[in-house]
């Protein structure tokens, strides 16, 4: 070990994950925009033959955004924040340095394999858990190496107290580990027979209603522990750090944490309301979803109150804007979700575009905004250069904010309209609309949504450009900035 004076935080792993965050973010959003456009203009399905249909690209979009962009972002920030709040450098341990790099490269290879198998249509057929068993095994190893990094760093820490962000990172690690393992339990058919058929193929350990329960216990909570918990970890570090304001209330953050942990796992069955799972379980799903509003709002309110009296920073620093807007979209989606989980509302909302609308409030408004803000904050510190362009960042902010608003308003109206049309009866009590009527009416909303997608994608390209320029061409910094990130 070196002596403290010469010691610096080592960001090499954080940098690697930063690159993949940008790469996968671009890819995921590009495909997302394409499939949004396909719903409005079906001719776009035939650009790549068999491989370019909506159905083949949709899992590519979800998986690249979830397992490519978001996970990379989580890890980029973890390898940055983890060192800093524990006051220990990766450079202090050769082993941890190796694990970090191993983690990254295995992840990168795994991601390539995943993309290839998805394009070939190899799938378990479960949403957000599509990968076949060999890739699942790779994912487990990737996950374990992250665990070793987390607990390895904690093991050599100087700061005894674990900062709240780390609580959330640990919860993300444990939650996803448990959920992923149980949901992906399957039997490879190749080995259960005399090596018949495809090597990749497997059958789920669970069937029918049971499988649905496990799947949405996973599906809902993969969102919880992948899209909520680690992003809260980020906001709890980056907002105070960028603004120089301590969290409004540390205690509230602790309460919100345990509230979230207590409640989140129960809410999974709200994806199965009005299905064949037992009635009491559906009721539980509704009930806990509603209880979940307040722990989630606790974090969001805590963030907004942190900026209390800091209007100057909000108007002056686009990075703060990103984070404040992310917090408000977090409030919106954590209220919208529970209300959609109430049985009577769910009767309309389920199966309609209101649900993708809700998801994208959370993902576009909260997850992506927060990850971009985090990377912007990290860039001057990792690359020792100031952020390339403030005005570009401002423009990006307004463009993407408009895009999110267009997205969720169009899908909101589309979903409610379609849901009500499905139920509509004429004066004789017969169904008023055939299914295709309810599809045709959505066309204008799909066009608006595709447009919102293009706007958001352009905003992300502006972000990527700004980041690349920051890494390569921006003014060098002599000293690491303490709070506010310097930008030109």
């Amino acid at each position: 070990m070196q002596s403290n004076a010469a010691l610096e935080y080592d960001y090499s792993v954080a940098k690697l994950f930063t690159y993949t965050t940008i790469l996968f973010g671009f890819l995921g959003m590009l495909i997302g925009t394409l499939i949004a456009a396909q719903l409005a203009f079906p001719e776009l399905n035939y650009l790549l033959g068999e491989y370019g249909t909506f159905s083949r690209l949709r899992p590519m979009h979800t998986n690249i955004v979830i397992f490519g962009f978001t996970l990379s972002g989580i890890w980029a920030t973890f390898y940055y924040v983890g060192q800093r709040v524990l006051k220990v450098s990766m450079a202090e341990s050769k082993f941890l340095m190796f694990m970090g790099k191993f983690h990254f490269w295995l992840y990168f290879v795994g991601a390539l394999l995943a993309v290839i198998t998805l394009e070939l249509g190899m799938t378990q057929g479960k949403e957000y858990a599509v990968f076949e068993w060999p890739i699942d095994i790779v994912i487990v190893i990737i996950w374990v190496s992250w665990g070793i990094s987390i607990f390895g760093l904690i093991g050599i820490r100087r700061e005894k107290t674990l900062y709240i962000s780390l609580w959330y990172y640990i919860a993300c690690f444990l939650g996803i580990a448990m959920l992923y393992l149980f949901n992906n339990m399957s039997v490879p058919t190749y080995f259960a027979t005399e090596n018949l058929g495809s090597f990749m193929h497997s059958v789920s350990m669970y069937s029918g209603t049971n499988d649905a329960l496990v799947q949405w216990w996973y599906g809902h909570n993969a969102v919880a522990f992948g899209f909520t918990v680690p992003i809260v970890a980020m906001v709890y570090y980056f907002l105070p750090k960028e603004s120089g304001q301590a969290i409004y209330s540390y205690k509230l953050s602790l309460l919100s944490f345990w509230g979230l942990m207590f409640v989140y796992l129960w809410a999974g069955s709200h994806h199965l309301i009005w299905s064949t799972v037992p009635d009491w379980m559906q009721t539980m799903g509704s009930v806990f979803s509603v209880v979940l509003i307040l722990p989630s709002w606790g974090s969001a309110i805590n963030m907004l109150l942190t900026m209390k009296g800091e209007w100057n920073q909000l108007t002056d620093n686009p990075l703060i804007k990103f984070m404040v807007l992310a917090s408000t979209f977090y409030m919106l989606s954590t209220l919208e979700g529970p209300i959609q989980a109430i049985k009577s509302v769910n009767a309309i909302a389920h199966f309609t575009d209101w649900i993708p609308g809700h998801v994208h409030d959370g993902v576009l408004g909260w997850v992506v905004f927060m990850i971009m803000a985090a990377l912007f904050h990290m860039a001057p510190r990792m690359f020792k250069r100031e952020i390339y362009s403030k005005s570009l960042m401002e423009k990006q902010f307004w463009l993407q904010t408009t895009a999110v608003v267009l997205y969720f308003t169009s899908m909101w109206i589309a979903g409610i309209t379609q849901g009500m049309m499905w139920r509509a009866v004429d004066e004789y009590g017969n169904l008023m609309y055939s299914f295709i009527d309810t599809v045709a009416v959505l066309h204008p909303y799909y066009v608006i949504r595709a447009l919102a997608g293009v706007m958001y994608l352009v905003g992300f390209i502006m972000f990527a450009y700004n980041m690349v320029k920051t890494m390569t061409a921006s003014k060098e910094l002599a000293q690491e900035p303490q709070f506010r990130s310097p930008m030109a």
Partner: protein
Amino acid sequence: MNSLVIKALAFAAVLIIGTLVAVKSMNVNMDDTINQLTLLGAVAIAVLAFGVSAKYINQMKTDTATGELVDHNWDGIGEYKNELPSGWAYAFLGTLIWTVWYWLVGYPVNAYSQIGEYNQEVLEYNKKFEEKHKNADAATLKAMGESIFLVQCAPCHGETGDGLSGKAQDFTKRMSKEQVLNVITNGSDQLKYPMGAMPGGMASGADAEAIAAYVAGGMKGEQPAAFGVCAGCHGMDGKGNGGTAPNIAEYDETLVTAVLTHGKKGVIGAMPSFKGRLTPVQEKALASYISTIK
């Protein structure tokens, strides 16, 4: 109220009005409690999410650093003694109370059954429907039939009932020449009329051709002599002898009901049975509509 909150609420109002306009333009029935509750939920989301976040953002502007400073000081950064936001705490308690209500009264966990509720709904509805339309007049039946047709039949037979260029039965005419020939050659025992099965090969060659041309032509003009063999069962006018054999001249209620019940497989393809999917009144309505398609 401050301007930011007002703006946020105005945005919520625009969203809700937009939703209402979109929904209303589709003639959706607003008496449905599910629809009402959904809109109520939408209003709650918009008003609370936008209103509350605007309130807090506004606080950044107006609420400059109030509160008590805590004793110690950390590298020049003061800290405020910040209490739990009381609105948040009360709302949390509120949701818990709502939870207990939902659990014990709204959808009582030991008594509520969604299938039970559904059965009840259908039972009550059907009773009312059958009673109301038991003696419906022809115009009502036709209008009802049209709406059923558009939802249940149009996906295969097309919205105009023309069978989508030969992909399904064309309701603008009774049978095509090809169909008639097919039945004459192969016979038919699908519709379970009292007269029983029709054997194949009752006519052939030029006779069969002549019959087919005559039937497909809507039984107009001079009747070919060979039609006599058909008339034995289907009647000289082809109308099926009062329901003992299929009507080959036009669509009638017996025929439509028979096809809906048993399905039919012919030279175009197969139609599955719709038995149990429609009530007797609905079948009658459908028949009355189909017989008017031109």
